[in-house]
């Protein structure tokens, strides 16, 4: 029977402005180095950045999760380490070190064997035809710390819970027996399996940092200043303003019906060219594709961002643009405590 999930006192949340993501993976590395360097989780990325349109990480994650397009439960799939996550590659380090420069014999660093998949495998590929309509954008992803988490509802041992004080979704690894129903059920495929410790492992929203009023590493390290962190209900904070007031930040795949608490400002794009190289007025990233990702609210979100940008271009004030530009990125984060960091 479905578990009753108590509403937390408040919900910590994140907004990412996809118009500013550089695809630099600084967030990915910041997270990985902080939380995921153990064997058993070497393949996993609590935060990753994928190129869209593309296959994503794990491969085709949006097709193998435990929810239908109507939000109903369906049996998901546990991704395979080789074909869907991508096993960490081995390299010929010894051969490179043994290179004999004097004899001219040189061995270049390369993977052993011929890799055919890995995280970020299709980086910058995108789709379309140059120069008419080629396009891609970057999509950073982490656990959505859902209001109704599919992972939580999948665990027969109730090893997964939402923290009362901030709604962060956590795995109690002392209770977990490694059944991986959570991995199967999460439609975002953001619960991983530590194959050495044989327990589930997932993003903890940098919980110890949140407790100190410091933003998660992925947000704090972002050179593009595209991440906003705060409490969902805080009307003075950036999350409420972007999600509820301006309605430009929307969840990924809202049709799963889980109440994701990570939101995205969808990407605007330059216009397509016709065969003569003239602009057609149509956005390069098809709005229908964005609707597949973000649902029908994407139209209004894009219209608002475009209108506010135009206002700013005319020299008029725009609260929305001021927030998104992030002149002082301390303003991107509104957590407990007045932790201001050096700009």
């Amino acid at each position, binding site marked *: 029977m479905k578990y009753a999930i108590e509403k937390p006192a408040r919900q910590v949340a994140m907004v990412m402005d996809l118009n500013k993501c550089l695809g630099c993976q600084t967030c990915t590395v910041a997270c990985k180095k902080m939380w995921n360097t153990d064997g058993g989780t070497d393949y996993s990325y609590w935060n990753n950045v994928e190129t869209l349109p593309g296959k994503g990480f794990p491969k085709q994650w949006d097709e193998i999760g435990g929810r239908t397009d109507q939000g109903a439960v369906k049996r998901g799939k546990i991704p395979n380490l080789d074909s869907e996550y991508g096993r960490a590659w081995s390299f010929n380090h010894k051969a490179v070190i043994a290179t004999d420069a004097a004899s001219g014999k040189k061995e270049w660093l390369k993977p052993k064997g011929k890799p055919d998949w890995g995280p970020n495998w299709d980086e910058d590929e995108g789709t379309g035809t140059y120069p008419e309509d080629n396009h891609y954008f970057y999509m950073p992803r982490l656990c959505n710390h859902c209001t109704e988490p599919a992972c939580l509802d999948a665990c027969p041992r109730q090893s997964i819970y939402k923290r009362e004080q901030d709604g962060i979704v956590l795995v109690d690894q002392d209770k977990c027996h490694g059944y991986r129903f959570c991995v199967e059920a999460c439609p975002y495929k953001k619960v991983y399996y530590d*194959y050495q410790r044989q327990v589930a492992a997932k993003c903890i929203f940098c919980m110890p940092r949140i407790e100190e009023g410091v933003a998660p590493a992925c947000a704090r390290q972002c050179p593009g200043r595209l991440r906003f962190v705060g409490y969902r209900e805080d009307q003075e904070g950036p999350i409420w303003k972007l999600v509820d007031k301006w309605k430009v930040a929307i969840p990924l795949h809202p049709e799963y019906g889980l109440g994701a608490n990570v939101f995205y400002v969808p990407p605007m794009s330059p216009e397509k060219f016709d065969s003569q190289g003239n602009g057609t007025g149509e956005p390069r990233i098809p709005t229908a594709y964005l609707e597949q990702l973000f649902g029908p609210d994407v139209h209004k979100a894009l219209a608002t961002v475009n209108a506010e940008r135009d206002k700013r271009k005319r020299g008029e004030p725009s609260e929305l643009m001021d927030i998104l530009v992030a002149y002082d990125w301390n303003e991107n984060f509104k957590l407990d405590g007045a932790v201001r960091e050096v700009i």
Partner: protein
Amino acid sequence: MKQTLQLIAAPTVMQPGGYVPEAYKDRTQASTPTVELTAEKAAARGWRIELQWACPQPVSSIANETDLFPDAAALMVPVVADAPWITMGQEDKPVEAALWRADREALYQLQAEGLGTMHRNDAPAGWSAQSQWADGVYRLVFQLKPWAALDQHGLLGIALWRGAESDRGGLKSVSSGWVSVS
């Protein structure tokens, strides 16, 4: 005493949470339909319990993989006479079990008072198991000394998990009730 037991699929509809009952509602057939049970008690050596079952595709290692599950077998006993078998006991009516997994040598000892409540610990000294797989058949011999609850009630419940069928947790083949071995 050797017995051939028909096994049933543990009812997924009873599983805690909303996902498993719905996602696995089609799992109505036991992945292992029968098991042969031989249980003997020798006063000095405790219980010797042998299970044999067909398993065409054994899974004895899940190392360095994300999507494999090991074959496993458990012997469950009631701690109080009326502990329900299908729910692995209930509050104040505990059950105990010995769990063997094909990917580890030592047994686990389990305690539960209902579905989702199971605690898993290293088995006590004196509990061991030897397994052999040949020609599509597992032969597993538990040596269990002592086991007061089994001595007292003489009842066993059997559960088998087939790794190749992604059996784990409540996805298992179980005896259709307590089996008398006294």
